[in-house]
């Protein structure tokens, strides 16, 4: 009975993680096209959501392992997976609140590592695999994609130097829309499958599904719909940082960075050196800014790099704490669910203070959390009230001299 309860909880939490995965990575494909106006925000997220769903349904060859060689597969139990997922969800939500793109798969690995350390000790984690499969790619991905994007941007501007932008922009916008769609489709095939894998492994471990079989139809559909809904909801805070915060994206530059992103993602997926989609697309946008000679906000880039380096320990900390409760039967799991609900609500309420949505995503480059900003004025946003007319200063009546 307890086991069934834990399994059901893991499935629900895995789908929640899939949802956060979707809105965290929506920006990877669509921040560029939205920033340049190649696609309208609503159209962009609908397109990305559908492609994510299609991608998730296309690729159902579930990976045999979710540990990625980071630790022994036999350590993976339902409570560990639950704790790891919780760590990843909380990390995704906090970075979303701050508007920072960070890799969802790294967050999941981080959460699982934290949970495994609490459950089986520090020595059970393979440190060198962390360096070679997580830290090194996090540094390499933005460099490779950035280099590609910088060269592409230079070439694009050089080749169309004498072409009036009235003519060239349409073509570049089409190019951008196509490359962004490819990124969304590729994302669906890789990340949708991740959640299916988690659910299937837990079902097999609980003897609810014969070992060695693929994901069941309802798992495929549920995972695809969860990631698609997440993508549709947009993750507008991250969208703003990537589309506006790092650098202003012009149309040819956007097309070049889209080309670099999709080429790098496809190359890494098929030539055996895995790179995170988030790191690749962020690197492309940075590189395209450098290639155009635009003013890149390096402070934003630095913050993102810190977030990437903190992803593993951050999600690991939450995952580890969750692991203290997750193997204590029904009461522990219920307590964790209550804590998760509280954390989600608090983060959501914070996000409401400076709401970012499809209507205002490209209005500014800042993602604010606390009230640190100057209040918007009439000049920024005509929808606000017109400024009150200056009141007439009452002058003291000159007393008539008697």
């Amino acid at each position, binding site marked *: 009975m307890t086991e069934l309860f834990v399994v059901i909880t893991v499935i629900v939490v895995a789908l929640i993680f899939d949802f956060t995965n979707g809105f965290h990575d929506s920006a990877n494909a669509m921040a560029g096209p939205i920033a340049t106006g190649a696609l309208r925000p609503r159209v962009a997220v609908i397109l990305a959501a559908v492609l994510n769903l299609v*991608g998730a349904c*296309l*690729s159902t*060859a579930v990976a045999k392992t979710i540990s990625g060689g980071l630790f022994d597969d036999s350590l993976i139990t339902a409570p560990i997976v639950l704790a790891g997922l919780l760590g990843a969800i909380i990390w995704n939500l906090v970075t979303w609140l701050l508007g920072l793109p960070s890799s969802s798969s790294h967050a999941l690995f981080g959460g699982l590592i934290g949970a495994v350390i609490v459950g089986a000790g520090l020595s059970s984690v393979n440190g*060198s695999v962390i*360096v*070679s499969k997580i830290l*090194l790619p996090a540094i*390499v991905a933005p460099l*490779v*994609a950035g*280099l*590609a*994007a910088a*060269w*592409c941007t230079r*070439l*694009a501007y050089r*080749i*169309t130097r*004498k*072409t*009036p932008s009235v*003519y*060239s922009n349409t*073509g*570049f916008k089409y*190019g951008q829309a*196509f*490359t962004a769609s*490819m990124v969304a*489709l*590729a994302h669906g*095939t890789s990340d949708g499958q991740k959640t299916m894998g988690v659910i299937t492994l837990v079902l097999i471990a609980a003897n609810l599904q014969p070992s060695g079989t693929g994901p069941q139809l309802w798992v495929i559909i549920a995972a695809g719909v969860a990631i698609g809904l997440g993508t549709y909801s947009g993750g507008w805070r991250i969208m703003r940082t990537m589309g506006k915060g790092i650098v202003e994206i012009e149309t*040819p530059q956007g*097309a*070049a960075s889209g*080309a*670099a992103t*999709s*080429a*790098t993602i*496809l*190359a*890494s*997926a*098929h*030539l*055996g*050196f895995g*790179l995170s989609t988030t790191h690749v697309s962020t690197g492309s946008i940075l590189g395209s800014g450098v290639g155009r000679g635009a003013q890149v906000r390096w402070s934003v880039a630095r913050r993102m790099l810190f977030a990437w380096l903190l992803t593993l320990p951050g999600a690991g900390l939450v995952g580890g704490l969750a692991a203290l409760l997750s193997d204590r039967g029904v009461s522990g799991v219920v307590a964790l669910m209550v804590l998760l609900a509280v954390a989600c609500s608090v983060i959501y309420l914070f996000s409401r203070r400076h709401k970012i949505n499809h209507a205002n995503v490209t209005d500014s480059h800042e993602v604010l959390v606390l009230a640190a900003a100057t209040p918007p004025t009439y000049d920024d946003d005509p929808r606000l009230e017109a400024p009150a007319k200056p009141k007439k200063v009452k002058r003291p009546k000159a007393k008539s001299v008697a």
Partner: protein
Amino acid sequence: MYIDWAALGVVTIVSITSSVIFTILLAAGIRLVSAAKIKSNQGGSGAMTVSLGYALLGVAGLLVLFGIYLIVPQFH
């Protein structure tokens, strides 16, 4: 610690080359098609330029199709 430097090198080279080729095709195609449009607006004929331009864009489109082929596992 095992790091697959060869795979990393291949990924780097392939990423940069393929994105550069795609961008050259796209930008050159756009330039030629635009030039042809401007020419025909001025009363000239740009048939040669426009067909070359669309040919380049077509090759860029083929690259996109190849990308989709790579993404969809059912194709290979």
